[in-house]
């Protein structure tokens, strides 16, 4: 029998699953290792989103080139709607490594002040302009010129994005290593614990939502309507019927103006919160229904941070040089850490939502002209096709093409794409998985199998055994490995179910449907990715779990 090492010396061709056909464009493609970016595209991308992603990629490439991190030879493509990328690892010479480290140090040094003086003011100016544009006032050709203008701004925003993220992550990594050097490798502590407690835009958004919840709680008229449990569209009109309701809706709208420019999913086809208040209303309703003191997690983590810092300072007392370096890096990391959330508020969320909003207007106009069947059909067009349809003679075959693309997307959204395609290089086992940015506090979407229709939001409770049952409160979202029949009493109080294992015909899925409980099953690693206390939204119709920071 061949030993393991000699087995690994050969490249391993990965078989293509029967349900996921791949046509390679050339002879090189099948020899590369392609991986699916499941974090950013848990569902097949719509053609429009794919088209727009060319702009964000352009911004990324520019930033990478400027900071010496650009690796030529990488390839990207859509396979059955899912984005895959293949990178060609560059040979690092000692000199290049040295240069790169210098570039990183310089970037860490400058990022904080550039953010405050350069990037953030420019983002705020751009976004204020994009929000203020009166879309209805344009004729079709002026509207499209504005689309192009928005896309150019979006491209620039993603250039900023990649200039910001690298120093933030690198400074946190550097701090983590230094902490381990002082306290010992076995005491290594994730950077986010050391740096917890910053007043980021994310924290502000959570606090603003909490205020809305509290205001609703103390106003009987508002509370009653929100808890009535009917369809959210009715909730809105019922609130409009009373003075208290109208006052509260005024606050909701100002919350949405501040924090509602964010798409509800990782594709432009998902509306922004500001477009459809039901997302916020649902979140508020579930928090209102839950009587738990949900935010006590914040306090305990801050205590943990202070404990870690004290320890580093006590242990480092005998090594003043090392401790001084730690303090310096700590100050730097502390300054940069909030950018990890804040850049996302301005770029990933707001800039993207504004691009969606203007493209949705294009969709409405195309539908009104009868070029496409419904405004939503526009997401199945590329930018070029949409431009032509809006400003020139539309392609007569556009409707059947849209139908075909919609069907393809439906077909492949029901298939779990393979993580890897192509060929594993001989040293695959040795490849260090790219250090994943710390996801604990970052918004993301997980994908599983839709098992019970409907949408539910609430505070995640990771339940590993019946010993954890006590911590589950009314309105929480149950997150578990798999559910045995004895867990079903919990189904009566939770607002949604997420499980790592299981199919749609399993017992827990059957019972979830009986209870009308939204459920997504087969979500890989759900119990390790989702942490206790995070607000999550479960779409049992789409099979998606949106994890909010």
């Amino acid at each position, binding site marked *: 029998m061949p030993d393991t090492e000699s087995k690994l010396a050969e490249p391993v061709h990965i078989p293509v*699953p*029967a*349900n996921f056909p791949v046509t390679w464009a050339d002879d090189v493609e099948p020899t590369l290792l392609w991986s699916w970016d499941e974090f950013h595209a848990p569902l097949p991308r719509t053609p429009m989103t794919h088209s727009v992603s060319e702009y964000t990629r352009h911004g990324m490439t520019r930033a990478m080139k400027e900071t010496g991190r650009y690796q030529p030879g990488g390839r990207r493509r859509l396979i059955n709607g899912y984005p895959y990328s293949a990178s060609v690892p560059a040979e690092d010479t000692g000199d290049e490594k040295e240069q790169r480290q210098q570039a990183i140090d310089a970037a860490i040094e400058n990022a904080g002040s550039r953010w405050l003086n350069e990037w953030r003011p420019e983002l705020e100016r751009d976004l204020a302009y994009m929000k203020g544009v009166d879309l209805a006032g344009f004729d079709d050709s002026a509207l499209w010129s504005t689309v192009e203008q928005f896309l150019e701004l979006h491209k620039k925003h993603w250039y900023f994005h990649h200039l910001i993220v690298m120093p933030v992550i690198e400074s946190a990594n550097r701090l983590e290593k230094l902490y381990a050097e002082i306290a010992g490798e076995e005491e290594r502590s994730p950077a986010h614990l050391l740096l917890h407690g910053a007043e980021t835009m994310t924290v502000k958004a959570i606090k603003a939502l909490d205020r809305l919840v509290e205001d609703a709680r103390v106003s009987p008229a508002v509370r009653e309507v929100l808890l009535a449990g009917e369809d959210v569209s009715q909730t809105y009109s019922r609130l409009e019927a009373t003075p208290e309701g109208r006052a509260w809706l005024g606050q909701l709208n100002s919350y949405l103006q501040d924090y509602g420019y964010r798409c509800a999913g990782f594709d432009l086809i998902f509306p922004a919160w500001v477009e459809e208040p039901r997302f916020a209303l649902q979140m508020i309703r579930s928090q209102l229904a839950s009587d738990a003191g949900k935010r006590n997690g914040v306090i305990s983590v801050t205590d943990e941070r202070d404990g870690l810092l004290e320890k580093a300072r006590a242990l480092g007392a005998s090594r003043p040089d090392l401790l001084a370096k730690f303090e310096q890096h700590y100050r730097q990391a502390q300054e940069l850490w909030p950018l990890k959330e804040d850049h996302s508020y301005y770029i990933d969320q707001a800039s993207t939502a504004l691009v969606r909003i203007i493209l949705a207007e294009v969709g409405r106009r195309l539908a009104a002209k009868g070029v496409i069947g419904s405004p939503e059909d526009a997401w199945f067009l590329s930018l070029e096709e949409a431009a032509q349809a809006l400003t020139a003679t539309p392609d007569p075959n556009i409707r059947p093409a849209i139908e075909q693309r919609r069907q393809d997307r439906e*077909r492949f959204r*029901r*298939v*779990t794409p393979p993580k890897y395609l192509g060929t594993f290089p001989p040293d695959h086992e040795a490849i260090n998985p790219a250090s994943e940015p710390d996801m604990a506090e970052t918004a993301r979407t997980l994908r599983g*199998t*839709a*098992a*019970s*229709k409907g949408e539910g939001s609430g505070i995640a409770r990771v339940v590993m055994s019946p010993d954890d049952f006590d911590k589950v409160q009314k309105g929480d979202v149950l997150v578990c490995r*798999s*559910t*045995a*029949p*004895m867990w*079903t*009493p919990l189904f*009566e109080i939770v607002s949604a179910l997420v*499980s*790592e*294992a*299981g*199919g*749609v*015909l*399993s*017992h*827990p*899925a*059957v*019972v979830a*449907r*009986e209870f*009308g409980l939204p459920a997504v*099953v*087969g979500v*890989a690693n759900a119990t390790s990715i989702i942490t206790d206390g995070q607000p999550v939204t479960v779409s049992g119709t789409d099979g998606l779990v949106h994890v909010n920071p």
Partner: protein
Amino acid sequence: MNYLLSLSEADSRSRAGGKGFGLHRLASWGIDVPPAYVVASDAYRTAMSLAPVADLVSRWADAPEDRAAEAIKAVHDALLDVPLDAGLLDGIQQAWNELSSTGSGECSLFCRSSATAEDSAAASFAGQFSTVMGVRTPDEMAQAVRTCWASVWSPEAAAYRRRIVEELAGISMAVVVQRAVRSDVSGVAFSINPVTGDPHEVLINSNWGLGETVVSGMVTPDTFVVDRSSMQLTVQDISQDKTVQHVLNSDGTVESVQVDPMRAMSPSLTGEQAVQVAELAIRIEELAGAPQDIEWTIEDGRIFVLQTRPITAAG
């Protein structure tokens, strides 16, 4: 009294329970089911009327809220030790003789709870009550029957039932005693799509070995969708997570084993088999007159149906 019913005699839902009555109907329609007998629910009622058990039930009825769980557990424990009627013991011996003369090799049985309220269209108690696998002697069979009875009074089953059925004492329990099938592949099939409510699709989940891993949600199974009008396979989502299977050993015991990684990623059904399972689900739906949720298993290429029940909630 005749406590042991053959499948052809199990024609009363109140005596045979939902599962037993379902198997009676399947057999009468000519669907392949494993050889089986049903311990009638009368036997459970007789056991419940015996002094120690009946006393504990009345103590539970009078118990304050905070002692209810304890009182339920006392009934549960008493049932595990309850003496069996001589007629029932005779019946168990006879059923054993009959079942062990079918098939080849060591005889092994599955004893499945078949509650009279279970599997009705109004409320699904799927999986709430015990199934005892790997039963290899008449004595073990007698104890498995007690275990199924006692599961009516398990704290979990009681909590689940509170929501749907008001009266705990109103339930009665038959037990299906089935010759074990050495399953190569098993799973569940719904004759319509229960998630979307789409009546044009049959949905199938499958995994290697016995079906428990699929039913309980222990693994992420393969998913197959068959379009009912064309009878074509439209979706096959092959799970790479079929890492565990339950197997029936040659000595009749059931074991949970790791699945070889390559096999874990391979389709557990061929497209042709998936269509056959779909055809079976549709045929049973037509015979039953309502969309069905069936558990099936394949041994040496032959498909057996282990149970069927109406789909309780769809769309």
